[in-house]
């Protein structure tokens, strides 16, 4: 059984982004780029399923600019067997990515697609659910535990107030939450090995997908700054401020 794992190249989570002065977006020139952290968890989970024998092949996919190859090499260093880059310089929104992924699923016929629950740049949290809808597959989002056996995936999900467990009939879509696993540290020998693994390059037109944006960004601005307040000397002063100045207790 094959597993497909889409990965996104995003601004590293440690970088504090700056809004461009012309309001057209955030400045990502000369900024460190990394694999979206939730996608790293997705790759790790797929590789663990392979280690357990539930899966035979892990295919990493990325959609975007040529540099996404680096992200795919990282995915292969974690343990993906091969990779596919859907190369385009166009802006890709979640619906377009879901359509590209559907075309690849039709071609590769995986039984499972594991995605990160959201990308930390646009914070959309859409692609996995959209792909599930386009394929007519069941979904389990925000997974904290995954078991695959007998044509089913049993998935524990993080929901408001606690946890929920679903059984999905394969083929299915899973999106990862933070507590699903801790991705392994990528070792140098595995980085070297990843360089030799196959990486295929296709274009959206090869897949017959129209990636035109459906949402236009008119302006990007800094959020309103919250100014620092005051320091109080002791607990008594704090209680006094909360009661008499802020009037919140």
């Amino acid at each position, binding site marked *: 059984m094959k597993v497909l794992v889409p990965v996104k190249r995003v601004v590293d989570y440690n970088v504090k982004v700056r809004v461009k002065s012309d309001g057209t977006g955030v400045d990502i020139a000369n900024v460190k780029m990394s694999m979206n952290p939730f996608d790293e968890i997705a790759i790790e989970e797929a590789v663990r399923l392979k280690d357990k024998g539930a899966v035979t092949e892990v295919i990493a996919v990325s959609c975007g600019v040529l540099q996404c190859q680096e992200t795919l090499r990282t995915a292969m260093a974690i343990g993906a067997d091969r990779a596919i880059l859907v190369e385009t310089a166009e802006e890709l929104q979640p619906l377009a990515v879901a359509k590209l992924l559907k075309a690849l699923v039709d071609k590769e016929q995986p039984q499972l697609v594991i995605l990160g629950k959201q990308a930390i740049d646009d914070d959309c949290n859409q692609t996995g659910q959209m792909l599930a809808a386009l394929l007519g597959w069941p979904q389990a989002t925000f997974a904290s535990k995954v078991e695959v056996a007998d044509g089913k995936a049993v998935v524990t999900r993080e929901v408001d107030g606690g946890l929920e467990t679903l059984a999905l*009939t394969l083929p299915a879509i899973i999106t990862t939450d*933070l507590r699903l696993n801790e991705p392994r540290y990528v070792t140098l020998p595995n980085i070297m090995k990843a360089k030799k693994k196959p990486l295929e390059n296709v274009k959206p037109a090869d897949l017959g997908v129209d990636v035109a944006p459906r949402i236009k960004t008119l302006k990007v601005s800094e959020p309103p700054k919250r100014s*620092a307040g005051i320091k109080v000397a002791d607990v008594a002063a704090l209680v006094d401020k909360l009661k008499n100045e802020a009037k919140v207790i």
Partner: protein
Amino acid sequence: MTSLVIAEHDNASIRPATLNTVTAAAQCGGDVHVLVAGLNAAAAAQAASQIAGVSKVIHVDGEPFAHGLAENMAAQVIAIASSYSHILFPATASGKNIAPRVAALLDVGQISDITKVDAADTFERPIYAGNAIAIVQSLDATKVITVRTTGFDPAAATGGSASVDVLAGVADSGKSAFIGSEIAKSDRPELTAAKIIVSGGRALGSAEQFTSVLTPLADKLGAALGASRAAVDAGYAPNDWQVGQTGKIVAPQLYVAIGISGAIQHLAGMKDSKVIVAINKDAEAPIFGVADYGLEADLFEAVPELVAAL
């Protein structure tokens, strides 16, 4: 132009997030309808009909909707979607799960986590964990939206008198099944709806101390308990208490951050709180940069003293 709000409910009553979503729907212009899909959910449908500003409630009842499975919920929304210009979900775990499925089936883009309605097709939403705000315009005929509840005041839960239409529901997809859930029972207010939140960080040191130090304060204030991601990762608090970019987005009247340093991802989840109090012994902690009232002190001394003084 009519908007459809997908209600979040427990079959007996409507969850507060629905009320904020109704407000956002009303700002899109036109009538507001509410879909209540559940099992034996007549009481919830009745409650939805009382919400101020709602003109019609569509009540769909049956086993396929007992656990809010995304496959069935999305199919049901699609079954009635053609009457609507806007389809809005609260940006909760449930809304985030279902909305993109609906958008893809309609072949439209989705606008996630809106915090403001600028026009019927133009919305504001935070990106990069709230470090930037994007103004976006939907180019599609139908707008599928999730609503960040902290961006909108709740609609009044009473005062409305909408009609309730009962519709036959779609069949079960047969592809997913609910096995079980572990939902923590608590007498405390729900985190995203609480007026006061007491939140703890890694400085609490252990799960035992997290509970023994923070519970008396939360009890005294009638507050919900929250936690930083660091505290959750360390196992001091359950994940559904997590406040931040990867957890819950909250905006209470009072947020008390105890032993929380103030990582960017935590601030993204609470910086819209009306009043922020920080108690931390590290004078340089970034949390003091957003706190209205900062107390530089050892939390193990200051918090019991605060409990005694209240």
